[in-house]
Structures are given as C-alpha cells and as structure tokens.
C-alpha cells in the first residue's frame, strides 16, 4: 500500500512542474513588456508598482532564469507580496482564507455523497419508475442551471421573501453577543445556502453516474448468482451490487474537485463569504497579479491533492488497483 502511495506521489512531480510552467506562462501572456502593459491597464499604477513588478519577475534576466528563481521562491513558500493596499505576503493571505473554502467544499462533498448516491441507486433499482423519471428530469435540469442564478433565486425566496436565512457573510452582526449554541446555529444558517449551491452542480453528475453504474452492476453474473442462491433482494442490492457500484464513484468525486474549487469564485462572491474564491475574484478585479497567480497555483495543487486522495482511497477499497 505504501509503495502504491509513493508511486502515485512520484507520478505527481511532472504534473506539478507542468502546473508551474503553465502558471508562469499565464504571467507572460501580456504581449510586450508585462510591466508596461500591466501598469497601463491599472489606473492605480505607479512608479513604485513598476519597480515591484520588475523585482517580482526579475525582468532584466533571461526567461529560463526568471522561471528558475520564481520556482526557487515557490519552494520556500514565497508567493510574493500582494499589490493590494495591505502589502501582505500572498501566501499568508491565501492561508488564512483556505480553511473556509475547504470547509465549504468538504460539506458540499458530504451532501453530494449523501444525496446523489441514494438517488442514483434508487432510480437504477426502480428503473423506469415514476421516481426514476422525475429524478431524470431534475438531473437534466441540474446540468443546465446556472448556479449563480439559482443562488439569486434562493436568496430572493428564503432570504428576502420568507426571511428565514441570511443572504451574505458567515456571521450575523450580533454574533459576539450570542451563546455558543446560538453562534453555532448562526453559522449553520449562514452556511445552508452556499453549501447547497456549491453542492448542486455535483449532485446531477454523481447521481446520473451512480445510476448508470448500478444498472451495469445489476446485470452482472455474480448478482444473478446471489439471487440464485436465494438471498433477499435487499441483500442482493445493498450488499452485493451497491459495494461494487460505489467503487468507481470515488473517481468521479475526485474528478469533481476542480469544478467545486472553480465554483467557489462564484458562490463565495455571491454570498460574500471570505474564502479563497472571493479573494481570487477581488484580486482579478484589482489586477493584483501576485495574488491571482498564487491562488491559481494553489487551486491546481489542491486539485492534484484531491485526485491523489481519490486514487489512494480507491486503492484502499479495491485491491485490484494496488496490485496491478
């Protein structure tokens, strides 16, 4: 098992290098001298900023040296200094916001698993039933709904029309005066809509995948064997079929991670949640390049780590993978 994990980590190294090369190329996208272009576009440009850009990119050196010294800084965890008025290191700014984003992504993953898998399994077991047809329609619409629009509608309905849920931020104004239990309830109330919206995109995909998977497994010979030896339908479905259908779902969950992280820009901006996605959006709007590049890199690394976790858990669950 350890050997398998080490092997996977080893295979990640070229990907990691590729990620840094792409990040570096995005920085060089601007035609002509990046210093001139960036500062021209930015109304807040100043001589000082030009100097800092020059220092950051080491523009007086050849490109491979620029890349190499940037990489060396990265390996020390140095992502540069933000252009925003706080002049703080980018790494620190990202680090303080990552927990919120990861918490939200984690909760949405839990919801996706808890909702999509039963839906997929039930609609496969009762294929062509009314339930299957209704969920089929929902899944189809789920693929097509712009999540930010759904967020607006839910804000209007639950936040403004009914007044049940807060529509922005993570805490109420009176948060500090609440009891610990009250603070918890307050946080949960603030999280309901963002987590639902973040999970929504993944729900359709996973439930459809689970359904297809389950349908395939049910047709296998060993299911027929299980039925033939007189097991109850319950045991056949939930013990024999479900376990085998669940395995590939781990991969799909891993694949849905970049979508979740990318989506954080949208729902954190809509709901004013102080996470990494919102920081990214603000950095893009303010043309705070060190922060933009830092988050782009971290987002890709998080995806890589997420995929590693998915691969490893697949190997834990399925011995065939780690042996071959």
């Amino acid at each position, binding site marked *: 098992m350890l050997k398998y994990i080490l092997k996977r980590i080893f295979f990640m190294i070229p990907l990691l290098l590729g990620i840094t090369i792409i990040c570096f190329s995005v920085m060089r996208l601007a035609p002509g001298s990046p210093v001139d272009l960036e500062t021209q*576009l930015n109304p807040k440009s100043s001589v000082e900023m030009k100097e800092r850009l020059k220092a950051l990119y080491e523009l007086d050196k050849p490109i491979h040296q620029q890349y190499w010294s940037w990489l060396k800084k990265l390996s020390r965890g140095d992502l540069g200094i933000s252009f925003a008025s706080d002049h703080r290191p980018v790494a620190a700014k990202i680090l303080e916001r990552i927990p919120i984003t990861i918490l939200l992504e984690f909760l949405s993953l839990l919801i996706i698993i808890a909702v999509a898998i039963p839906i997929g399994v039930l609609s496969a077991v009762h294929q062509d039933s009314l339930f299957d047809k209704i969920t089929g329609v929902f899944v189809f619409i789920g693929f*097509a709904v712009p999540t930010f629009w759904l967020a607006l509608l839910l804000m209007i309905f639950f936040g403004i029309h009914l007044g049940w849920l807060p529509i922005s931020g993570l805490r109420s104004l009176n948060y500090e005066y609440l009891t610990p239990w009250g603070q918890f309830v307050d946080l949960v109330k603030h999280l309901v809509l963002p987590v639902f919206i973040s999970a929504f995109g993944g729900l359709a995909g996973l439930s459809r995948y689970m359904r297809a998977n389950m349908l395939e497994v049910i047709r296998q010979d060993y299911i027929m064997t299980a039925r033939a030896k007189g097991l109850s339908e319950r045991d056949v479905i939930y013990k024999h079929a479900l376990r085998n259908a669940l395995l590939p779902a781990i991969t799909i969950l891993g694949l849905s991670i970049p979508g979740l992280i990318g989506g954080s820009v949208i729902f954190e901006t809509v709901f004013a949640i102080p996470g990494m996605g919102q920081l990214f*959006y603000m950095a893009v709007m303010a043309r705070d390049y060190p922060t933009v590049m830092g988050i782009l890199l971290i987002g*890709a690394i998080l995806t890589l780590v997420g995929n590693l976790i998915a691969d490893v858990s697949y190997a834990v669950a399925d011995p065939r993978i780690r042996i071959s």
Partner: protein
Amino acid sequence: MGFWETFCKNKLALTGSGIVLLLFLVSLFAPWFAPYDPGQIDLKNVLMPPSMDHWLGTDQLGRDVLSRMIWGARISLKVGFAATGVSIVIGTLLGAVAGYYGGWVDAVIMRFVDIMLCFPTFFLILAVIAFLEPSIWNIMIIIGLTGWMGVTRLVRADFISLRERDFVQAAKVIGAGDLRIIFGHILPNAMASILVAATLGIAGAILTESALSFLGIGVQPPTPSWGNILTAGKDNIDIAWWLSLYPGLAILITVVGYNLLGEGIRDSLDPRLKK
C-alpha cells in the same frame, strides 16, 4: 433506420432543435423582435415591474429587460459558437495527432491534457482575463482555449480504435500520406462524436460566459448579455426580482435546448454511443 428518421422520432431531440432554432431566429431578427432599443435609458421608468408596456419590466436605468434579453441572445450565440469552434479545432488536431501517431507524441500531448485538467477551469479563465481586457473577443478565445481537453481525449480514443481498421490499412497500402489518412479517412469517421461534443460544448460555453458576465469580467455593459442583466438583478435583489428571474430562465432554456439536441444527435447518429 437513417439518421433523420431516428432523429425525428425522438421527441426530446425535436424539442431541443426547436429551442435552438428559435434562438437563432431571435438573434438574427433581434432588431425586429425587440420592442424597444436595448440601450434606451428612461429615468422616469426605473426598475418597473413587468407590465403591458414592459413585459419583463425595466432595469436600474429604465431600459426594457425583454429587449435587452433579445439582444443578449446574440451575444450568447456568438460566444457559444466561437468558443466551441476554438476548442473543437484545438481538441481535434491534438487528439488526432496523439491518437494517430501514438508513442512519445501521444505521451507528451496527453500529459499536457492532464496538466491542463489540474486547473479549475474557472480559475484559469479568470487568471487569464486578469491579464487581458475583458472584451467579447477575448472571452470567446479564452473559453475556447481552456475547454479543449475533453475533445482531445474523445478524438484520440476514436483515432486509436480507427487507425487499425482495414480501410486505413488499405489507404496506407495505396500510398496515402499521413495528412490524407488523418483528415480524409479517419476524421470523417470520428465526426459523429465531435459533433455531439460541439453541441454540448456550446451549452457549456454559454454557461461560462454568463457566469463571467455576471461577475463583471465578461461582456461589459452597456452591451446587453444575460449574465450582466443578472448582475443588475443581484444589485437590486430586494426590490426587483424580475431582473434576476428572466435572464436566468433564458440561460436555462438555452442550455437545456443544446443539451437535448446534442444527446438527440448522439442517439441518432450512432446507436453505439448511446449511454
């Protein structure tokens, strides 16, 4: 059964083509369909709810929402087609080369695909936009440049299975060059899956464009797009629900339309592709 017979029997596919056709007509004849000039500011009728004069209400500058949505259909059609065109061309070329030649060429291209897939697409798009002006042309190209990986995998898989077939071997025997085999013999056989990917890709590109415009980094006002009308909806969320409801509904229906059409084409062109 031929393609058209199967396609015409598929009610969902017909619904999809109906929606897509309607959108084409609306975009083409936007100046005739729109009851008002989409840029006409009317400060006496700001944020008016839907009425007989303004069927879908007015926005924060008194502009007619229906007219802006009709013109917005043009934008989403343009962006959808152009962005998908870019990603289909890149994806097909890379996938064809990787699948046909195999070996290290294939390995290099597919590692590149893996690396690109590590980036949350939306992050990559936003990062690139931060360095460029958010114009409609840049948006189209950027969405296209970040969306070709799926097509590459698809086309590569098709090429790998097709290159060993007898007709390809026969073409080689009569001395056809690589280019002729790739474009003249194999590609036509991979067109079915490319066409389906393109149709579904248009839906995805329209969703991405609307999200970008909603965030204020896509199509810039005063050019109307469904996404930037929704921005106004968010800014006036407590007083003007119609600004939020209708443009999103238009996006939803459009995307459903392209998805239905894409799945319809898939089921009719090639029953083997049916899921």
